[in-house]
């Protein structure tokens, strides 16, 4: 049985969570399922490479990102339609010059003709969808995150090389320092480190 490490910490530091180290994919995967089945919600798995189905093992819900993308697309479509309608087809009564549209008659086409404007609607839809996806992805991932207490741990550096980690947050309802520590050892952890910040 490996030992628990309690790192040197400042006086005001608080316990953030417990970090358990695993040797290989199989053991971390099995342990993740146990953590999920024990009812933990606030925990994360760190690995040097993507592990297939780890999302299922962690019990993660399907992402909300598609809905965000759909909303972004619809907003973009509305924006594009309003833009071309405002700039080509109308002149608000008594509006200042800077707010008047450009009612140019081009090659005999109607002032507001859909075929000419579909590329614009299409492009704004795509643009806003792309924005929604990128920004939504950042938001759902809590990015950008410039600081994470885990970075202070020397042991955690091997998460990008050859070790696998499960970190259970201290603010999880199920969290109890000693019990959770024992639970993680039982689940097959090689070593456990307290994370203070």
């Amino acid at each position, binding site marked *: 049985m490996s030992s628990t490490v309690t790192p040197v910490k400042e006086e005001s530091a608080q316990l953030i969570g417990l970090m358990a180290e695993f040797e290989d994919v199989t053991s971390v995967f099995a342990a993740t399922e146990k953590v999920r089945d024990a009812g933990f919600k606030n925990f994360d798995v760190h690995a040097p490479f993507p592990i297939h189905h780890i999302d299922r093992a962690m019990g993660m819900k399907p992402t909300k990102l598609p809905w965000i993308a759909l909303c972004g697309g619809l907003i973009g479509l509305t924006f594009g339609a309003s833009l071309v309608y405002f700039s080509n087809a109308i002149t608000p009564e008594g509006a200042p010059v800077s707010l008047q549209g450009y009612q140019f008659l081009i090659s005999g086409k109607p002032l507001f003709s859909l*075929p000419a404007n579909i*590329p614009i609607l299409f492009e704004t839809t795509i643009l806003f969808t792309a924005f929604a996806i990128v920004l939504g992805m950042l938001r759902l991932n809590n990015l950008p995150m410039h600081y994470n207490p885990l970075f202070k741990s020397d042991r955690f550096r091997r998460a990008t090389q050859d070790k696998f980690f499960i970190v259970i947050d201290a603010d999880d309802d199920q969290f109890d320092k000693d019990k959770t520590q024992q639970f993680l050892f039982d689940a097959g952890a090689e070593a456990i480190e307290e994370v203070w910040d």
Partner: protein
Amino acid sequence: MKTHIDPNEKCFLSGESAPGGRGAKDLWLYIVALVGAAVAVIPATMMEGDGVHRFLLAYLIAFAFVFSLSMGSLFFVFITHLCRAGWAPIVRRPAEIMAANIRVVAILFLPIAISVISGHGKLYPWAQPDSALVGAHADAAEHGDAEVYVDAVGRETVIALVAAEAGHGEDEHAGHDHAGHDAGGHDEAGHDAHDAAGHGDGHGAVADHGLEIHVVQNAAGDWVFPHQVLDDFTMKKRPWLSQGWFIGRWIFFFVVWTSIAWWYLRNSLAVDRTGDYLITQKLEKWSAPIALIFALTFTFAAFDLMMSLNPHWYSTMFGVYYFAGTVISTFAALILIFLGLQACGFVKTSVTVEHYHDLGKLLFAFVFFWTYVGFSQYMLLWYASLPETVMWLQHRGVSMVDGQTNGWACIILLLLFGHFMFPFLGLLSRHVKRSRKALAFFAIWMLVMHYTDMYWLVMPEIGPNSGPVFGLIEIGTFAFVLAVFGIGALRLASKHSLVVQRDPRMADTLNHENLY
């Protein structure tokens, strides 16, 4: 991790575990083909008007449909090799078989080739000998305001401007000289010839008060589109659109496609036997030049097959437009083939919902691609508004202006909503793509829509006086052509395994999973 096909998997249609088993039961396909041929030919010979013209157009629609299946499959085979697609090998064999079936498509091409050689110009107006050329401008006086051309053998061709829609324009022009009004029955559908003099020289004109089209009287006395007689405008494309060169290049096309498709099938079967990854490497290496060859030959084939129905009209996007529909029909067909095979107990464990999901994603993507290309083509024609290009669209019902619509508008609206909006929204969700029933529905739907698309491209050439016509001739030719294609494909399929047996990417494809 699966690395091999389950030994209990039923992979052979013939029910035997080794290649070279007896053929699958395809007697019913022969019956469908015969009945289809009879159902198409009998009404075509008995109908009033030009039955040969109608039959050839219906046949061309059906041919374009099965040609799509073969060429789309060829595209699927080389593009998955080109991308080294790990998910694809398990669904590649039916595509290889449909692509190799291009030899049957070549036989199905014979009626079209014969119609071109015979020189009557009914299917392709340019497919006439030079002697049919509409000749010099004649004295128009005795024909009122219509323009009259005389061809090399002295036949007169009258060009008149008519309002295209019944009940539109008559009153306005009641006082005008009704040139050619009593000739050839062009007014049967309420069409009304009127003043042609004010509209320059002849080839199509859009008047400011509604849609008007030029019609000409051909040698048989029928009123047809100007492009349906051999005129100077068509003759400018004579180096390309000539009978001998058409036959020559199509022989070349079929030789190239058949060689490529059989090369893929033969090598894929060799991988089945040996598992040699060097063969797969070779296929992948040569897929890049084959993609180039495919793109060029397919574009010119599309120009020949359907764009040259109207030799006045041209669109450089046309090849891509047909290609988009082609790929849609292929993915739909692959989905249905595997659903059908699995329903009959074949390849039950190898092909999973993940493969359907991927085929569904590609189907969805190409639904949008079709729209993208179709709209791009339309927008350029609409913006430039050149008479010879706009006429093509206008007669196909593409106009939202009151009084400019005709009977074909319902077909293009059906395409807009049925070929794009409905499947686009329907296939958007991953749950639909992962549900076999929903995916089967959309696959059938897209095949019907692909037929409608081909119908919309081809059938308006029936003539200026006709709206959409659909009947036994269309159904019969389609049944015949599809059944003959099916016979060829089934013969090939029953000789070989329905899925690849060994492949360097076997583990990839058997364990394939979609994250999203």
